[in-house]
């Protein structure tokens, strides 16, 4: 019998990232930009409304997330129960979240229900009523989630790292305290909403089979007048902690969250793309140095990852993992060892080629289908990134050399500058 081991393995075709072009944009009568992403096989349409209404815009901590969560808790025309019943009866899904930099409402609906669903979306975005009773219940729920978070090593580890990176008064670094919930009155929430949930402060992405068919409905529902100027992103002050160890005790935990990181670069920096490739080698995919060493050779963890990213005004590099309490020092030592190795020895061409191909496949998956493409494009719009971001990233992936990668590790990965966070049992 012939064995597969005697058969020639299939020839691998170098993957290409495929089409990553920036979508067409049209404007509603009032100037709201609408990005159209066509394709797919099902009669669903996804509409995302993105507003400059994230945490960086807030004066009162958590105002952004509470204003966003309250969108479906009642409007001037419908109480919470009736409103939700109307939405759910259409079969549509309304997902609304406030993040650090933006807030959004994603609606996925059967194409034939688009009109009634968009009328509800307009009501939810621009005419919520912020009823006191619903606000009280929401706050109680958020407090419960906050207290549950105090038991999670991963949550504490993340908070401590971003506080050390950005400062305790910076919106990216601020850690929620129980007393912060007291300030969240309906007046604060209303005020935040009236300032930032405005057409001039919003863009829309439409993805699905025939996205342009949604335009008449969008014009009808979202062409309200624009009077104010777009809200400016505030200038943020950063106060980065000096290098060193931060220990946060989480009583009785069987694992510790370990975070090691430092300041990086923002998206407009010429090394940002190259850094994505370097980071992938260290800890950005399953075959990364860290994963192979700390999971697949030592078995200390279920997973370890390295991330390089950026907010407005600050970039960061962070390595994160959850390990048994007894392995945490050893894990930190091994992370340092892996970085030191990459600072000295250039990666082999085989390893670099693997990372290149994997990265191309990843980009191809990001743009696979209209819904994923809409998510990928959002990242570009939110950070005012050049429309050719992905084509430049692709060319960096294709041309970066092992020497350049060594140089990037020497420039940007210096564990002596690291903040090390351990959240776990003593």
């Amino acid at each position: 019998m012939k064995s597969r081991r005697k058969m020639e393995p299939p020839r691998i075709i170098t993957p290409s990232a495929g089409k990553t072009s920036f979508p067409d944009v049209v404007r509603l009568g009032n100037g709201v930009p609408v990005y159209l992403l066509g394709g797919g096989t099902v009669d669903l349409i996804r509409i995302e409304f993105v507003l400059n209404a994230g945490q960086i815009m807030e004066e009162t901590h958590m105002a952004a997330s509470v204003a966003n969560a309250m969108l479906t808790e009642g409007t001037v025309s419908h109480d919470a129960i009736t409103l939700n019943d109307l939405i759910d009866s259409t079969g549509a899904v309304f997902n609304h979240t406030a993040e650090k930099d933006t807030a959004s409402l994603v609606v996925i609906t059967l194409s034939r229900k688009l009109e009634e669903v968009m009328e509800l979306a307009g009501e939810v975005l621009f005419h919520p009523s912020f009823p006191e009773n619903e606000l009280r219940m929401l706050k109680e729920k958020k407090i419960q989630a906050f207290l549950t978070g105090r038991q999670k090593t991963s949550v504490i580890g993340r908070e401590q790292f971003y506080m050390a990176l950005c400062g305790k008064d910076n919106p990216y670094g601020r850690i929620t305290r129980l007393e912060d919930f007291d300030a969240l009155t309906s007046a604060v929430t209303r005020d935040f909403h009236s300032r930032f949930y405005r057409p001039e402060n919003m863009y829309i992405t439409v993805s699905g089979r025939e996205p342009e068919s949604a335009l008449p409905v969008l014009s009808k529902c979202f062409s309200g007048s624009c009077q104010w100027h777009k809200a400016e992103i505030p200038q943020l002050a950063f106060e980065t902690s000096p290098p060193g160890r931060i220990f946060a005790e989480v009583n009785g935990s069987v694992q510790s969250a370990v975070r090691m990181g430092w300041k990086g670069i923002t998206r407009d920096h010429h090394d940002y793309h190259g850094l994505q490739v370097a980071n992938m080698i260290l800890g950005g995919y399953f075959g990364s140095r860290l994963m192979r060493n700390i999971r697949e050779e030592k078995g200390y963890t279920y997973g370890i990852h390295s991330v390089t990213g950026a907010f407005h005004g600050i970039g960061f590099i962070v390595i994160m993992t959850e390990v048994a309490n007894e392995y945490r020092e050893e894990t930190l030592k091994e992370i340092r060892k892996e970085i030191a190795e990459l600072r000295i020895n250039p990666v082999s061409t085989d390893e670099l080629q693997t990372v290149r191909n994997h990265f191309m496949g990843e980009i191809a998956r990001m743009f696979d289908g209209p819904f994923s493409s809409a998510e990928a494009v959002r990242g570009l719009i939110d950070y005012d990134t050049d429309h050719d971001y992905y084509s430049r990233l692709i060319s960096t992936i294709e041309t970066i050399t092992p020497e350049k990668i060594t140089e990037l590790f020497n420039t940007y990965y210096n564990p002596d500058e690291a903040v090390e966070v351990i959240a776990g049992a003593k």
Partner: protein
Amino acid sequence: MLMIEFKRHTLPNGLRVIAHHDASTPMVTTDLLYDVGSRDEDPEATGFAHLFEHLMFGGTDGVPAFDTPVMMAGGENNAFTNNDITNYFITLPANNLETALWLEADRMEGLDLSESRLRIQKSVVTEEYRQRYLNQPYGDLMLLLRPLAFRRHPYMWPAIGKDISHIEKADSRRVKEFYHRHYNPSNAILCVAGNVHPDQVFSMAEKWFGDIAPGRRIIRNLPQEPPQTERREITARRKVPAAHLVMAFHTEKRESRAFYVLDLLTDILSGCDSGRFPEILVRKKELFSEADIYLSGEIDPGLVIFSGRLRNGADISKAEEAVRDELDKISTRQVTAAELDKARNRYEASRLMSYVSAGNKAFNLAFQELLGDANGINTEIERYMSVTAAEITECSATTFRPGNCSVIHYLPESHEE
């Protein structure tokens, strides 16, 4: 209604192959489903199927690291194990499909089961156990529920295993036996979905899997769970900020009418914000901060599980009574036409959402084939749409009997009951 078209072909060695052509994507997903889950484990060696899933990434003589060629081909891959099945999937550019098939065939036959590999993956799984179940507030709820609800059927332990010590004790003799018994064409279903023609899929499958020895199809003879006649209850105390209530009821197997009836019913009760539980238990009575009911979804008779986080200060017995009231209501009075209509619309939309990605379609086709016929992916719609209000009442009355209930009162350590 969207129909998912597919073709099916069984190789002479018993491997069932399904192909679905989706020209809208440049990618392709291979889904290889092995008909083995934690229900097939020895009660003294649980967690084995899942541990084995980890070993499947260890490489073979010919391919020392499974992931490297996948990454080289621009792919990503992963796997999961549950009580019924172990499922492996690779998504990669369609023109590299053959690489995925080569790798899957290679590890179906020639896996490297070295001692050192086993030792490391035992440690990784132990950390997974800690990360997902022990180091999370409320993380052990399902570890508590299964042995309470099941006394004979192997669903009494979760896929991760009954206890970490079982994983620590796993030895290589057993690992090898397990591999030879379950990992063969007779016990596997391969589905390929994406930008490739079915004929090409079949010829590549023949080329790479065709000469693997068939193995023996496993015929199960699992201990059946006797009907539960008396309420069971346990109380657990943990370091958590709020109490949690779980109530679980035995139901029928996956391929029963009851499954579809209860799937729609649970959507009416808690599938969306306007469901009865969010409206009554969360908003009106203010007993819970979240209240959910869902089917555990196993192939053999499984559970329908109520799971609710209590509001601070709410009394757990009162909360349980309120859930009981709702279950009694649904068991005696028919749901309204509007509720049923809403559930049907929601089902239609969620079905379409699940077919946005070729990878999801691949898994669904393979799983339906395991249940008996891949075309279930299309005929299921009718099974959902034909559910009547009268059936819901009848099925609720049978399911939500007080004697058929296992209850967990999960309380904060300081809590006085």
